[in-house]
């Protein structure tokens, strides 16, 4: 069977790719487009490592076929930094030591960015609930939560 041709926008750039119908968006991001910033954890929607934005909605890219991306706007962790300047969330993840092995980090960053776009001043409880679909087996979560709250404060222009 011939491959499917998909036209989409990824991290602000118009992208076209060929895929098999059964390939997930995650498969294509990593193995076809070589955008390996997005990670595969469980592959079944439980861990959130593959989180991306689909038309401004947070989704697991492992639970979506690449074919479904036709005409849609995808944002990944690779679009967060501006050149060498890290996004405040990335900077605070470093400063708060909110990562160890790093496999979960892209998913946490994308999910946290989605939260702050909706709610610039979340409570700790709101951050924890929003990020409940992102699993981290290293940090114990506290450092991640602190990094998100610190980034939120900086982005609001408040003193962190």
């Amino acid at each position, binding site marked *: *069977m011939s491959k*499917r041709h998909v036209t989409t926008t990824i991290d602000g750039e118009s992208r076209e790719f060929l895929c098999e*119908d*059964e390939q*997930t968006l995650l498969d294509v991001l990593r193995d076809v487009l070589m955008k390996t910033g997005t990670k595969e954890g469980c*592959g*079944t*929607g439980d861990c*959130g490592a593959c*989180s991306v934005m*689909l038309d401004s*909605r*947070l*989704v*697991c890219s*492992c*639970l*979506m*076929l690449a*074919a*479904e991306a*036709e005409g849609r706007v995808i944002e990944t962790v690779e679009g967060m930094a501006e050149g060498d300047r890290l996004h405040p969330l990335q900077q605070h993840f470093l400063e708060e030591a909110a990562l160890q092995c790093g496999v979960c980090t892209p998913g946490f960053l994308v*999910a946290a960015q*989605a*939260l702050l776009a909706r709610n610039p001043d979340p409570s700790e409880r709101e951050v924890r*609930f*929003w*990020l*409940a*679909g*992102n699993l981290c087996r290293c940090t114990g979560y506290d450092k991640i939560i602190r990094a998100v709250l610190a980034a939120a404060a900086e982005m609001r222009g408040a003193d962190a």
Partner: protein
Amino acid sequence: MEYAAPRSLDEAIGLLSQVGVDARPMAGGTDLLVQLRTGTRRPKLLVDLKQIPGLCGIDCGSQGFRIGAAVSGAEIGECLPLREAWPGVVEATELIGSTQIQGRASLGGNLCNASPAADSVPALIAAGAVCTVIGPGGRREVPVEEVVRGPGETTLSEAEIVVDFRLPQPQEGTGDAYQRMIPRTEMDIAIVGAGVSLRLAESGECLACRVALGAVAARPIRVDAAAEALIDRRPDAAALGELAAQASAAADPIDDKRGTRAYRSRVAGVLARRAAEMALRRAGPRRVAGSPAS
């Protein structure tokens, strides 16, 4: 496997009829893609329903609500008129998975995946939701409680799909609620779910009540005996105790490491009562003190 994204109902039903049992309709895909990966289901054709206008969007009118079967949980959670009218339905829907899952998961998928533990289903049954089913034989209206046959199986015929869910505008004095028990604090599958909707008269008497349970039988069940414990009575402690006893008696759950049969049966009563109490608080300011729960 092939993927198709038809733009119309006719086209979707045509594809499903043509391919038959080897075709599988897909809404959000949050259950189905996992089943493909694990090999639980091996369809030859996946028919994506999200491009079909009739399955998208929420309409709120004076007659009630139409919720497209492929609308995501996130969209449902953002629909304030729906939340105000049927908070139990919206809260149950929001319990389906994480933020990421909410971005895709739908009521149509939650129902047709046919898990006995699907969170939105008892709340929809309690609220009296009816779905529009369309297939090669035409259109029919089916109460939600008649869709699931057993684990992974529905009563739909080949090539039939659930297009939307209809809920009325609640009459004055209506309240609904959904409660569930999971072994963890978040992100888990219900070992018991209980949905209740009811309507109070100005006198405080209960005029109407519907009770539904999830995860305690092979499919979500409506429990009329529990509802009858409140109907035409004042919903006092004795009536609520009777509702709980009837809900426990109606439970016929499995027995596993996540919850024993005895525990699930007991909790079915406890949660039915708590859901009824929350529904009573929501039923309106006409009913005495106690802060509204919504």
